[in-house]
């Protein structure tokens, strides 16, 4: 769907800062999240988890737990179906292990009981006999040919022979003659980097309430980024038909990609089927950190050549990611994103994924990109330092622009990178003075963005109000944006529109809330649905006026005669048309179904000042500014919110957050006390500058904005810290001991 041919379009609603429709419920405690509902006769579910990083499950004896008063059902992996499809099978064995426990925290069995306390007591009565196996949690160790094998026979066909069986994915992107490119360079830097796995850190643990009868009919209430995804996974894992499962998405307390899979819903359904009662499962924080998706951990080598005036002549990257105990393709996105900000003659990126005894990786905001771009932008910064060049000028000189053959294949259309870099250069932050032990860093960031499968129904109500029905959980204010686009297109006030999120039985299939797709794709479908409704309203009015349909136009919320030849009819407003719809052909609605293309890539630039304490290695963020192309900012407050929130998650990744495994393969820090996400006192204000370079693929020019902001902070902070400390940091997180070690050698 193309950008509207309206060069100076005047927006009435889009671009304003209206109040979100779910706001009152959220400031008064009324909003119902995953754990907030109960049902008559409800049981409480609880899951028993493996204490071992890697172990064969020899036997499971549930008899004592079943005999405990108040216990109504116990399930193990044997109670779930084993789907033929490999992805569904991975979901099944991750929900409840079969022959092996693959990581510390892997679910092994579950109980449903009449109280939380009895459920807790009951899982302690389940006797699991384990045969402990050798484990591996480090990606480089896992790739060695003699490494303990996490799962056998999972490598894709294109993985070269002779690798450990843990290596499941191999990919390669790029173009040009690398040798010739490096030969032209005046300076070549090659560096290796490592990054720790981090967690999305949503404050709401996964929670669900599920009910399944032995007739195969079921209901699930859960916090998820995609109710249709939950339906597909549950249907496959329970062996029931999708039409018989109705999944309702609750309000969602954060996701950031982490709620794009299922961990507990199939277990709750299995317990419900066995007990005949609704079952509620709420994960603890310990379970969330041990058993839901952290991001990948990585090890990377980057080599870049540059001329003395700053032109990049060749670039090569090799990325080794581990997505935990299952095959994983995040490295492909990392390899594609690594050099996307640059217009390069010669570039190659190679990616590997290796399985380790860690929880299954689940996407985290721009999955794969932050780590790869961290490594690339660190080397670019070091080249600038070595050659005495301005890091912004070098990026401007090498920036990808319209017509650039990207490092991953496609040729870029209209993109906002140059404008974003220029905005950063012009900003007072870039030239503000720095004190001792302080350094300034910058980094570009990139994300592909996504469109995807989308359904929207738009109903014209008989009182002249409008209902929009869409199928994507609202994770950060999207209902406001969708209502705004409907109001804009129809020409009615924002408060006349109410947008609701449908359950899976009330609307056709929608892809999950991911890929920064909702405001783009659901917005696009909403605009099209509104146009369908407008067409119908114009047709009704043409009938009343007894003129051709083409002679009626829609303007400012009313049907009007197209010109003097159409006659002198007074305009009919939406409300007037709606009031008599029963007499002109019945209810009026518009709908649109699409697999949306044209999401339009997104670039951002982050500027960061840090101060390093030479005595302790502690890093303080002094100033932080985010520049990003939003295409068209539908609701600027929530665009800024995405930019600020992503930046702060990146700050946590850069400085504090880390999955720490002991020699025994057990996670050492499964609590917010030790897995430390940024708190308010760690941070300065996060300044934002929104650029609007319209996306040609959306009628209003919208681009997704959610993911790009987490990409640049890792390198922006690493570059600032490296300049402040006068030593190049190559490992994340840059925790005080690690920084101190780098300073003191």
């Amino acid at each position, binding site marked *: 769907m193309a950008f509207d041919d309206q060069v100076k379009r005047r927006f009435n609603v889009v671009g304003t800062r209206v109040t979100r429709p779910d706001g009152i419920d*959220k400031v*008064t405690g009324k909003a119902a999240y995953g754990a907030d509902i109960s049902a008559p006769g409800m049981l409480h579910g609880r899951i028993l988890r493996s204490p071992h990083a890697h172990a064969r499950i020899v036997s499971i004896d549930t008899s004592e737990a079943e005999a405990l008063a108040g216990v109504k059902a116990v399930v193990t992996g044997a109670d779930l179906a084993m789907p033929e499809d490999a992805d569904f099978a991975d979901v099944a064995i991750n929900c409840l292990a079969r022959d092996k426990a693959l990581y510390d925290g892997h679910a092994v069995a579950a109980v449903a009981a009449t109280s939380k306390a009895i459920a807790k007591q009951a899982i302690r009565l389940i006797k699991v006999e384990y045969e402990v196996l050798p484990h591996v949690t480090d990606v480089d160790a896992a790739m060695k040919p003699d490494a303990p094998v996490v799962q056998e026979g999972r490598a894709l066909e294109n993985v070269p022979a002779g690798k450990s069986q843990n290596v499941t994915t191999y990919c390669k992107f790029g173009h040009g003659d690398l040798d010739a490119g490096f030969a032209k360079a005046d300076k070549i830097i090659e560096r290796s980097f490592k990054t720790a796995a981090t967690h999305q850190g949503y404050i709401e643990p996964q929670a669900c309430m599920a009910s399944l009868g032995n007739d195969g009919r079921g209901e699930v209430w859960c916090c998820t980024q995609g109710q249709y995804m939950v339906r597909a996974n549950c249907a496959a894992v329970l062996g029931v038909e999708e039409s018989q499962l109705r999944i309702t998405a609750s309000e969602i307390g*954060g*996701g950031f990609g982490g709620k794009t899979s299922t961990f507990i819903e199939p277990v709750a359904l299995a317990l419900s089927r066995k007990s005949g009662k609704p079952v509620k499962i709420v994960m603890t924080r310990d379970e969330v950190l041990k058993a839901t998706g952290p991001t990948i951990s990585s090890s990377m080598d980057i080599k870049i050549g540059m001329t003395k005036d700053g032109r990049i002549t060749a670039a090569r990257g090799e990325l080794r990611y581990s997505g935990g105990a299952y095959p994983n393709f995040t490295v492909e996105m990392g390899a594609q994103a690594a050099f996307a900000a640059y217009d390069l003659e010669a570039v190659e990126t190679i990616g590997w994924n290796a399985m380790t005894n860690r929880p299954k990786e689940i996407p985290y905001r721009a999955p794969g990109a932050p780590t790869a771009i961290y490594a690339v932008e660190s080397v670019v910064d070091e080249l600038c330092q070595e050659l005495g060049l301005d890091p912004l000028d070098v990026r401007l000189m090498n920036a990808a622009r319209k017509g650039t053959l990207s490092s991953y294949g496609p040729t870029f259309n209209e993109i906002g990178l140059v404008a974003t870099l220029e905005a950063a250069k012009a900003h007072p932050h870039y030239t503000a003075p720095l004190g001792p032990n302080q350094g300034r860093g910058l980094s570009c960031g990139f994300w592909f963005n996504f469109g995807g499968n989308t359904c929207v129904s738009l109903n014209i109500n008989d009182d002249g109000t409008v209902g929009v029905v869409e199928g994507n959980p609202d994770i950060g204010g999207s209902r406001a944006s969708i209502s705004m686009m409907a109001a804009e297109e129809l020409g009615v006030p924002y408060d006349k529109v109410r947008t609701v999120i449908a359950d899976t039985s009330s609307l056709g299939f929608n892809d999950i809330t991911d890929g920064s797709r909702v405001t783009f794709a659901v917005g696009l479908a909403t605009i099209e649905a509104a146009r369908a409704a407008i067409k119908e309203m114009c047709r009704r009015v043409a009938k009343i006026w007894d003129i051709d349909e083409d002679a009626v136009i829609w303007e400012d919320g009313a049907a009007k005669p197209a010109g003097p030849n159409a006659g002198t009819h007074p305009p009919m407003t939406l409300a007037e048309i709606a009031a008599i719809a029963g007499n002109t052909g019945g209810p009026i609605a518009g709908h649109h179904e699409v697999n949306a293309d044209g999401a339009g890539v997104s670039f951002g630039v982050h500027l960061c000042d840090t101060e390093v304490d030479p005595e302790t290695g502690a890093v303080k963020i002094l100033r932080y500014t985010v520049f990003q192309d939003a295409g068209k900012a539908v609701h600027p407050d929530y665009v800024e919110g995405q930019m600020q929130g992503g930046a702060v998650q990146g700050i946590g990744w850069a400085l504090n957050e880390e999955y720490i495994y002991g020699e025994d393969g057990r996670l050492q820090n499964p*609590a*917010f*006390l030790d897995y430390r996400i940024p*708190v308010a006192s760690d941070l300065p204000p996060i300044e934002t500058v929104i650029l609007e370079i319209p996306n040609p693929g959306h009628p209003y020019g919208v681009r997704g904005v959610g993911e790009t902001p987490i990409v640049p902070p890792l390198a922006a902070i690493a570059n600032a810290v490296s300049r402040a400390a006068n030593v190049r940091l190559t490992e994340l997180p840059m925790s005080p001991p690690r920084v101190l070690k780098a300073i003191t050698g």
Partner: protein
Amino acid sequence: MKTIPVATTINGDETEFLCHTDESLLDVLRDRLGLTGAKEGCGTGDCGACSVMMNGRLVCSCLVLGVETEGAEIETIEGMAKGDTLHPLQRVFLEEAALQCGICTPGILVAAKALLEKNPDPTDTEVRYWLAGNLCRCTGYDKIIKAVQKAAAEMRAA
């Protein structure tokens, strides 16, 4: 295990409940009294999503036992608005878009109200340190700090 009767005042209403000796105030509020505005983000006092006032003091309700509240005055997010009139903090949080997913919002509002009752004119740094016990993963805190300061200014002027 037997339950114990407890008599408290919650949001100004006399409230009696039965609970086990090992049940947290948070579980009592959510599971026994249907007051689900306080959230459990961690259960270990690290996230502040369960913040409530107990006898005028800001506490993590996951770290208080239900039986400890005998005779206590409890205030939760459900008692913050008066009828259909939002507390200035609640209204300004909406005006300033100081929430995204909203799961931390009840705890942050309760904590911010406690701060402004103690210190009606805090510096940004004081707001940031006071709210350091309340985790928010969506906003980066920027709009939260601005909203607290705007509400504080309004409340001082009122």
